[in-house]
């Protein structure tokens, strides 16, 4: 019997492409021969825009890159600018930064877990993840009046001090977190169908992961022990005791479950930070007009999606000469074709879910 492959256009309007990603699938029946991600539907030219803004004005734009982890992005750009200016940050601000960044990591991973469950047909799992994430967003809302686009971490510290009772609310959340994780275990990760769907599918070897410059959970699922918080500690991360969970085979299950484990580690970091947080100012003495000395700087942090880096070139003027972001989701997404070949259509959805691109960052 003579058969032929056919092309299926998945996206940009498709329920499972996490925004406006388009994947052109070449299919042999249900089996994927080739998957080509077509990106750029959400391109806003953030890099170029930021080169025409002052340094401080570029912070809100990072909120709109990876919109699920705004705090981490704020942290990355602010630390890059501070590195360029050689600025010292008050202790309390450092702790607030760690707490908010790790809370944001938990919120982001909850979305990843929940949306993957949704992509695999499990509606209810998604609802519970989103419900619990709302607790974190409420915390952020009371902190800075925004749920996702925070602009809270500023050059020299944070925008303002924590509101009254915020730390207690945060402690209450951490107290409830184990129960939430138990729910996810029961409803999502403990489900045999879900495990069947993910285990052994789309494995990624450590060599290929490194060669493709993958980072974050995608890299660590393949067994590579690389977490910027450990490998190249920024801020005050060297003060905390936490582990970097590692996978073995780099399949969809490892990539998925690693995020579950990372939530636990993030909670550990927050607990330690809540114990150690000192009183004091939250903002360093920063000039009203930031004019960093001539030079260039690269700084990277561990964003929920991977190794987020910023490269800034200063010509001494109030605006950066070059503003570039190394976007982990964009780089991880390049693995989609390689991982999807030979799997089923349904697996493309799952692989996309475990690679976890946020299109705001991919297209930037």
């Amino acid at each position, binding site marked *: 019997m003579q058969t032929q492959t056919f092309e299926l256009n998945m996206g940009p309007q498709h329920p499972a492409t996490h925004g406006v990603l388009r994947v052109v699938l070449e299919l042999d029946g249900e089996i994927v021969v080739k998957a080509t991600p077509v990106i750029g539907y959400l391109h806003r030219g953030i890099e170029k825009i930021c080169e025409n803004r002052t340094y401080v004005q570029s912070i809100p734009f990072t909120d709109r890159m990876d919109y699920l982890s705004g705090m981490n992005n704020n942290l990355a750009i602010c630390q890059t600018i501070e590195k360029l200016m050689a600025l010292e940050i008050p202790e309390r601000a450092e702790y607030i930064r760690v707490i908010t960044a790790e809370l944001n990591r938990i919120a982001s991973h909850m979305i990843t877990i929940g949306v993957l469950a949704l992509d695999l*047909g*499990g509606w209810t*799992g998604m609802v519970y993840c989103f419900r619990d994430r709302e607790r974190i967003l409420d915390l952020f809302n009371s902190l800075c009046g925004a749920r996702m686009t925070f602009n809270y971490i500023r050059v020299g510290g944070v925008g303002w001090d924590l509101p009254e009772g915020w730390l207690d609310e945060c402690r209450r959340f951490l107290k409830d977190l184990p129960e939430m994780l138990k729910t996810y275990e029961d409803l999502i990760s403990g489900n045999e169908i879900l495990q*069947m*769907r993910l285990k052994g599918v789309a494995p990624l070897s450590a060599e290929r992961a490194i060669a493709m410059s993958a980072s974050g959970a995608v890299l660590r699922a393949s067994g590579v022990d690389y977490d910027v918080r450990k490998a190249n500690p920024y801020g005050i991360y060297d003060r905390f005791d936490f582990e970097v969970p590692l996978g073995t085979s780099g399949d969809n299950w490892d990539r998925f479950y690693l995020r579950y484990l990372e939530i636990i580690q993030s909670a550990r970091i927050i607990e330690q930070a809540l114990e150690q947080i000192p009183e004091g100012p939250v903002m360093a003495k920063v000039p009203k007009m930031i004019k960093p000395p001539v030079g260039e700087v690269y700084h990277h942090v561990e964003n929920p999606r991977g190794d987020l880096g910023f490269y800034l070139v200063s010509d001494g003027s109030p605006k950066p000469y070059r503003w570039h972001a190394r976007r982990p989701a964009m780089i991880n997404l390049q693995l989609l074709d390689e991982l999807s070949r030979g799997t*089923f259509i349904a697996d493309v959805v799952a692989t996309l879910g475990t690679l976890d691109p946020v299109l705001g960052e991919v297209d930037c």
Partner: protein
Amino acid sequence: MNTNQDILLTIAATLRSFLDPLLGNPDVVDVTMYGVALAAILGIIFGNAVILVWAERKVAGYMQSRPGPNRVGPIGLLQTVADTIKLITKEDIRPKGVDRWVWFLAPVVLFVPTLAAYAVFPFSEGLIAVDLNIGLFYFLAVASTVTIPFLMAGWSSNNKYSLIGGMRSVAQMVSYEIPLVFSLIGVVMLVGSLKMSSIVEAQSGIWFIFLQPVAFLIYVIAATAETNRTPFDLVEGESEIVAGPMTEYSGMKWSLFFLAEYANLFAVSAIATTVFLGGWQPPPMPAVMRDAVAFIPGWIWFAAKTYFMIFLFMWFRWTFPRFRVDQLMSFGWKVLLPLALANILVTGVGIYAYRIAIGG
């Protein structure tokens, strides 16, 4: 069985005695009564769909710790009515390039076997449209044709998502038809009849769910696949192939698919009730209590059990993720089918041993 007459049967008898002198010829009266039964079944299907759509959303809300529909009418009961009005008034879009007649006929044809299957449901003692001597076989034969309209819709839509969905539906329904049929054979062997009323009456002592637990399990799994509900909703698979065969349908045509889904859900639940849960009979209980609940008509028991089964299916839907197409196939052929065959063997040996034991 009991002395107090069922209210629905009374109505039917009154209607017949009213029609008898009016029409004269008993054959004409029979045909008219079939018409009444058909109208009643249509009423059940539509009324049921209204309740089930609402119930599904309420159940989903309950599972997901949210209230569900609660704005239109008391506790959201009129939500389905509002939805229906919305669907009817929606534009009926016919995309370019569809195979016009096949595309138009698919949702209509889908509804026919579903409707036909209702003819043999024993809602209560004597309350059955046609008590065929091959009732169960008739149901299976009619229900298996549901595959065709899905393929028609998938093929004629001229859309790749629809086509994949249509192909999936054929593979899935044909594969799960076989364990479904085999799971019912055990019961048929015990009863020795395919007649629905005999099957129910045979369970007056003990329900067949206790004699055939494995068959019940296989039936529930295969029925979930037959109705295309999670974890077997590959045909629709909204995160993979958008909506499968229904992708290109809108307005009333789409809602016919929707209606048929709920009618099918009720159908498989009703068969589970009839075959495994004792049909219209109250649960096994001491004679004293039996007399105490004798005033409850059989169709109430039937409805209660059927809705319990429907709740079970809804529970599956809102907690399980979806299978992948190869896993679906291997589960059907490598697990369910051998299990169903083994169940038939064990049932046969059991019946033989029982006959020897009682010296038959």
